[in-house]
């Protein structure tokens, strides 16, 4: 049987989650590999969430927010954008392929785009195969505070601070 990756998706409530719902109302079929978690804004997506997802067994993480300039919260998605750059370094540091983390913009009217995105990412992850984690990371899976500390340390180490 072909490998079926599991993707954890963090979708902002106003654009992307609505867009995913639109894919539903418009019955735009796509692959069933995504597991959605709703957040109010993509800006809420803490790097620890991403790490946690990998630690808990996800093969990929998709973060979706409103298009730049369209954020319901004015500029939350810009913050996400900067944070995701950082996150790229972070996952690399943990030995995870950067392609397993994606940040995409999906507006409330882009059901089609959302469906395509899920399909694309599923295919890509299939090729990458299951996500293998270093044991230290895997151990963090059930240790929230430890995870939090690890991320903060990593952030500090990278010399980058989340300025607004």
């Amino acid at each position, binding site marked *: 049987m072909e*490998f*079926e*990756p*599991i993707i*954890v998706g963090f979708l902002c409530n*106003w*654009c992307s*989650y*609505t867009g*995913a*719902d639109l*894919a*539903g109302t418009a*019955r*735009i*079929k*796509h*692959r*069933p590999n995504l*597991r*959605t*978690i*709703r*957040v*109010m*804004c993509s*800006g*809420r*997506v*803490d790097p*620890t*969430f991403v790490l*946690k*997802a990998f630690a*808990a*067994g*996800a*093969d990929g993480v998709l973060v979706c927010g409103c298009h730049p300039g*369209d954020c*319901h*919260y*004015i*500029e*939350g998605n810009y*913050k996400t954008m900067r*944070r995701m750059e950082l996150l790229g370094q972070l996952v690399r540091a943990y030995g995870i392929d950067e392609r397993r983390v994606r940040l995409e913009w999906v*507006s*409330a*009217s882009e059901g089609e785009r959302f*469906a395509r995105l899920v399909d694309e990412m599923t295919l890509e992850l299939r090729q990458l195969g*299951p*996500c293998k984690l270093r044991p230290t990371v895997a151990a963090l*899976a059930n240790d*929230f505070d430890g995870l*939090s500390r690890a991320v*903060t340390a990593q952030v500090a180490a990278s010399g980058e*601070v*989340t*300025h*607004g």
Partner: protein
Amino acid sequence: MKDDCRIGFYICNCGTNIAKVVDAEQVCERIAGLPGVACARAYKYMCSNPGQEMITRDIRERGLNRVVVAACSPRMHEPTFRKALEAAGLNPYLLEMANIREQCSWVHDDPRAATAKACDLAHAAVRRVRYHQPLEKVEASYAPATLVLGGGIAGLTVAVELAEASQPVYLVEREGKLGGNVGRADLTAPYLDSARDILAEKIARAEASPKLDILLRSELVELRGFVGNFRATVRTTGGPTRDLAVGAVVVCTGYQEFDATRIERLGYGRFPDVITSFELERRLRMGRLETDDGRIPRYVSIVHCVGSRNPRYHPYCSRVCCMTALKYGHEIKSALPAAMVTDLYVDMLSFGKGGEDFYRRTSELKTMFLMYEKGDPPRVRAAEPGDDCGLLVQVNERLSGEVIDVPADLVVLMVGMEARADGGDVARTVGISQDRQGWFIESHPKLAPVSTATEGVYIAGCCQSPKDIPDSVAQARAAAAMVLAHVAQGKIEVDARFAEIDPDRCSGCRMCNELCPYTAITFDPDERRSSVQSALCKACGTCVAACPSGAITARHFTDKQIFEQIEGVLAWSSSRSS
């Protein structure tokens, strides 16, 4: 893990919407085995009366203290089920929904995979709901004043309606006068009433009302605050910039006409006698229904669906053009009794009250109706010398299968409606979304056709999608009803979701202060601690994610809740879990 949880799990079949792909019984079974789950049930329509009663009964009889509903999108029925919890005396925030319809059964075909996904989503919801806390809604005052954007027929109607219900209204119009696009028309279909009279009365009433403040040549530049307590900054050209306290905003910014030059074969811009419907309207109003060089046209051709129902331009129907074109049939025959009118249409959408009768009467005026295929608009060319007309319109006529040339001295293009080019600015300012065509999106076309994603911001009229005058007026009044219902209460319950800062953990780094787009976080220099003003916070959670001390909690979106959810979705399906 909380051990005192008694979770009720309910899965909705949604008729067959969910059940035809997702095996609800199987989901039920698997969830029932999870720790803390006191009962798991499936029902045909959870949102209906018996469905809701099932929940309330179980809460009362089985002592449930958490509820998970796996059904449609929470955007649709979260409020419904929260009410059910409240009815049973349970805090509404102890509910979690798993979206297994829009994001599962409707988009997947494979029952096995869809059921697995539904299980994961339900599992996640169950894990998450354990960490839900009872939250109390905050009551806020509701400012009686309303800001209406746009002084067209919809905006005027909202404003007059509210003002005559003795509520203060600010009517903001970008142009120098009220009336909008209706003000450009002479008569209205199908009863040929005077558009000017309709507007004149409304404008007179608006101007006479002491409660109504008309701000011409003005624009909304910023909107802060939240429902019931907005602060709107309105800038008037050559005037002061005002800061208004309003409880609600009604957006009635209308539409703009399609640029007919985009369809080259229609010859607009190339032939002076190819004119748009608005140009014809002006000629009719001025009593100068003539060709460019002042001749009286013997043949007038009216082309429907210019820019509408055409995949290359706009896929949608502009809804009013057919009736307007029929109206032109009458008007042209009245002004020029000898003229022959040809009407080139795709489908005749004379659907409104009196519409079909109007269509019949127009055909009795010997209007020649010709049908062309959607996406194959007619071609306009200059007539040959010796012809008794100035132009020839070539059309592939579907009802006869013939390619024919129609003589014309004047060609009228029924230009469709399109979303205003500046719609994006308005949408961003007031915090609403636009669809692919640029129309503003309503919360739900049937549940809440005038509400938007932002509470307290309503849309009415053509900015939502094309519509005729009665429908715009009805929608405008519907928006007024939404406002009035709140105004009558004088207060509003604000969502209990907001961020909180734990003063003990706050290091006073002030990083969050700059991040907050709503300036809801203030810094106390004496205490060297930041704190959130809950009424201003819109719960985006940006500060939560950024706080280096982990001192900020997003109520109802806590780290723990999301962590549980992450584990929940992966517990059964991940490649490493099995």
